[in-house]
């Protein structure tokens, strides 16, 4: 694999990996919101 191809792959993994991390945090927030909605008593 050439250096150029490796750079492209690394950049892709960095962007997608970071997006996946943010998406996971978003999912956590969504699940919290759903739990609050489910148990809403106030």
């Amino acid at each position, binding site marked *: 694999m050439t250096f*150029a191809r490796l750079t*492209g792959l690394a950049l892709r*993994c960095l962007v997608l990996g970071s997006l996946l991390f943010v998406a996971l945090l978003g999912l956590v927030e969504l699940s919290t919101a759903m739990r609050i909605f489910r148990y809403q008593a106030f």
Partner: protein
Amino acid sequence: MRTFFREFREGAFGPTRGSLAGTLAVTLVWIVLAAVIVTPEFLAENSAVALNARDDNTRITARALAFRYSRDRAPMVAAMGASGFRMALMSPDEFEAILEARLGRPIEVMDLTVGGLTVWEIASLVDHFPDGFEGVLLLGVGPGLLSYKARDLYAREQEIRFGLDSETRDDELRRAGYEPAPSTGIYFLDHVSFLVSLRQHWPRLLARAERIYPWRFKPWRRPYAGAEMEARCAMIRERLSDYFETREASLASLDRAIARLRSRCGSLEIVLVDNPRNPAYVGRAQPPGVLDDYFDVMRRYAAERGLPFLEANSEGILRTGDFLDECHIQEMAAARRYTTWIVNRIAPALERMSESESGR
């Protein structure tokens, strides 16, 4: 150059077997980094961070963690209670100034008051008193504290207001038939929901920006009156409608929290403080019989356990003009009067503690 870009594009967008593993590896690195950086100690170092005067949850979590890790064992004053008590007290700096004027030496104040505090949240907070704590705990109480059903308490826990681990709180959950959230022992993973809710704080936390403590006596709005106030009283009456059903269980939870605290503290004086009440609405913001029963129960509870029970309303400390509504003080002069009244009542205990400390 053209070959470089073609190859680069091929790596960035072309089908590659390694990309999935690489993506997952990067995600894992982010998670590990977050787990390493965002620890209880990290939040404790930013113990006064808050977005604004109403941002209690972040502040209380950070302050409770800072409290847990503090090493200073000089007698101090901790205040715990709901919004009515929170707004009746001066800010910690002002509170400390009043204490110093009365006692002639500095006494630190730890403010752990938060809107809508529940008995399970008290359980969480008592686990964050440092081992060997010495001083006075002011515990603001009122019918509201005793009016939560287990289901309401559990619902409040689902809001994830605090990022705090607590055995005492978990014990209360189990007693009520609920299973506490599983723990990995890694703060970031165990409290990720709470930490996500802090996203507006992240830049400031990471930059270790200057600490702020909000000034809380900026009047929020004109006082409630007329139909608006009647509607508010009706809402409070509705909130207290389970009081007779829940008060015994609430007091039992409070008892367990106090017992846990006593087992870990040195010289500790717990002072129950009746939440301030607008004299014009006494009895109108509670269902019939609740207030009389609350005073009977609370006076007996305090007497049986040898705890002082301070009642500002009975002593005529407060006036209708001090209040925003039925229970929240918004006049700074009134908060100063109320805080000074409390300081005068707890000063003898603090003096005794300081004498025994200097005698050691």
